């Protein structure tokens, strides 16, 4: 079937098999930040934005994003660097395999709720698994980033 979508602002028109998953389509189009950690929608590694809302690309057919705007971490490099630096300064990136999905979802959270409490952070990101860090370093990084933004009057 013929589909048209925008990947990180670039229009793509293609004939795809009906059972093609969004994650596989994106990786085939060079968005290698998108990772697969499970096949059961449990890990959050494959998180991308469809129309600026986070979705699990392993659990969505590419046909469903026909006519829509898809964003991966490749399209959010500046934000990823700004926020990611705070994760890096905790050493909480560790193996890094879960980072793209986690950072995508964190960016979504900052946009939705620029001043989250610890509990809200944990709730929002509960679907992003990480086996290395134990999550505390990620939380420290998020909080450091938020207070940096606050001090500098920036909007997330």
């Amino acid at each position, binding site marked *: 079937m013929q589909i048209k979508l925008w990947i990180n602002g670039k229009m793509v028109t293609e004939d795809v098999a009906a059972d093609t998953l969004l994650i596989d389509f994106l990786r085939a189009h060079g968005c290698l930040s998108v990772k697969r950690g499970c096949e059961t929608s449990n890990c959050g590694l494959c998180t991308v934005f469809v129309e600026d809302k986070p979705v699990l690309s392993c659990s969505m057919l590419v046909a469903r994003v026909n006519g829509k705007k898809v964003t991966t971490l490749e399209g959010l490099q500046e934000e990823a660097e700004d926020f990611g630096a705070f994760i890096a300064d905790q*050493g909480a990136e560790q193996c890094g395999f879960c*980072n793209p999905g986690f950072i995508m979802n964190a960016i979504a959270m900052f946009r939705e709720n620029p001043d989250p409490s610890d509990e809200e952070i944990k709730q929002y990101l509960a679907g992003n698994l990480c086996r290395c860090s*134990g999550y505390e370093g990620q939380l420290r990084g998020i909080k450091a980033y938020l207070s940096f933004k606050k001090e500098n009057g920036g909007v997330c």
Partner: protein
Amino acid sequence: MADFKVVNKPIRKKDAMALVTGKPVYTDDVTPTDCLVVKVLHSPYAHAMIKEIDVELAKKVPGIEAIFTYKDVPGKRFTMAGQTYPEPSPYDRLILDQRLRYVGDGVAIVAGETEKAVDKALKLIKVNYEVLEPVLDFRTAKDNKVLVHPEENWEALCPVGADNKRNLCATDTSEYGDVDRVMAECDVIVENTYHTKANQQAMMETFRTYTTLDPYGRLHVIGSTQIIFHVRRILANALDIPKSKIRVTKPRIGGGFGAKQTCVTEIFPAFVTWKTGKAAKLIYTREESQIASTPRHEMEIKVRVGAMKDGTIRAMDVYTLSNTGAYGEHGPTTVGLSGQKSISLYNNNLEAYRFGYDVVYTNVQSAGAYRGYGATQGIFAMESAINELASKLSMDPVKIREKNMVKEGQIMPSYHDEPNSSCALDRCMTRAKEMFDWDNKPLAVDLGNGKIRSIGVAMAMQSSGISGVDVGSATIKLNDEGFYALSIAAADMGTGCDTILAQMAAECLECDIDDIIVYGADSDSSPYDSGSYASSTTYVTGKAVERACLQLKEKMCKIGAEMLSCSVEDLVFQGKKISKADGSEEITLMDIATKSMCGNTEATQVTASHSSTVSPPPFMVGMVEIEVDKETGAVELLDYVAVVDCGTVINTNLARVQTEGGLAQGIGMALYEDVTYNSVGKIYENSFMQYKIPTRLDVGKMRVEFESSYERTGPFGAKSIGEIVINTPSPAIAHAIYNATGVWHRELPITPEKVVMGILKG
């Protein structure tokens, strides 16, 4: 402590920004996609013989390149365990075997142009299985009439007590002092049996390997592995080809935790590429990673502790039954730690101990290496027994530990008679008590809202490399402009070893961390390293880095002396320059680097290797506060205090995150992560839907501090950190649950169902 400039600092990992911005750095990102897709047909039976296997129809699927069965593979057995040769793990595997030994064992390898073609072909392979009776209960495995490995060419290279005709992968008993006599003299004896499960490492990147032939016709293996040199040997054994025909490299690794210390996927695409000459890739699904990989050894550990009324612990008797599953990877070695690392913790007044074990084959998924490597299982058992003893004696569980814990300077008979050369376990306990306010907290308090708040404690130790075995090496080279290249074969699997080893080099060479570039790991060009496991990298490879850098400094001074026409003794190395001691003349590092490339005969490159005759243990204390819901049995983590003695902390951020990550995995093991089988040996927990690893809502608040001893044999006083950190949660949480409910849970995980049933049964 010495005044360090680069070491003992919270330095950002060298690859951090690439990782947080999602750069393509992992195996599947850096290898081509236009290669053969490889998949494995897994056995549906726990024990069966392939009577007939017909692949002709499957081969007709368009795009299928090759299908291999047991008829096509070499007949020499090998082990997939990443260990130094001769491996203690028995040679009990073939790439594919006619006998299938667990649900998930390899039946056939299919390679094709597309995943769809391969999936279709997998379904069209016709197999006639002769289903055999399996050995599923590891308590009945030894001397069972059903043999997991009846084959004649099964071989144990090391004297580990293995006997395939008894389903034994290893067995041993060691004794120090007269255990029975001392036990008889004790006022109180605690004796219990503890059971831990086959936990999955569950690193986020599943097992995966890409293989291709290089321009010289050699097999180039690019994969997610902790052990490039061991992979080279294992593949040479498996394929029955010379080691010189194989090159193994690793890109970034998406986590390992020991899982990637075993060749889980490498043999399959390697065989395909070797046979077809074509590049091939195998990526295990999460399901395959759960059912056909290399989890922790399930263990049942019987502990007897003999003590006096005042809490003096005089004798210990530990017996471990370990389940290695269908194959023996890491079976003979993990089990030793279950006694060694638990008994040695209580060295102070110990007069006698006995430690015996059997490691048995069964028809379940083969076990392997997982962070903690047997110590985790043993420490759950021992620390629980000590808490039970304290309870029996109505003693403070902290005080009984303070009275009996191993002290610095003591000889540890249960730890190869090694001296406890650096140990701040006592200070860890003191600091943990302060942070936790242990002395002022009741063991349990009913909150009156259906919940009970309670506390628990545990200690742990581990090792720093395998003494007399592990080899770490480093090559350091001076380049133009005076920057250095550090080449290693230790595998940074996210732990940050590339960075911490660069920190050590920078400390030695008195330069900035950015002046050190790090390259690893490539079996063709990296200096030999056993690999990243057994908590060896910081301690063993770190020392090699230190030595290489010191030797390079000498060489640079030699060139400097020649250029300044003076003797080496007159010179002082100062990082960016080398000066005459009297300050009269100096030469920059850049000048030396330039000279090294023009008319120079003194190599500005040094390779140093290191191996340690001792393995100084790191220590730690964990204290936990929980709330137990009396009606649902749910356990909520509130606060976890961990104080660690890993010697000098090389990178303060990374050591902290190692600790927090290890605690989270330990919490998962204690409360959530279960492996259960149906009546015919199939694992229920074959996805993250059933195998619940902790989320950020499950781990509570963790507070980590360090109380460092100084280990003279380690680089800058360092020991290890990677493994010890997983060991305290299970016993500490079990202790807290007892304090809340009055029930000792001696089997992990302690699920809400078990907690609530325990309360109901009283």
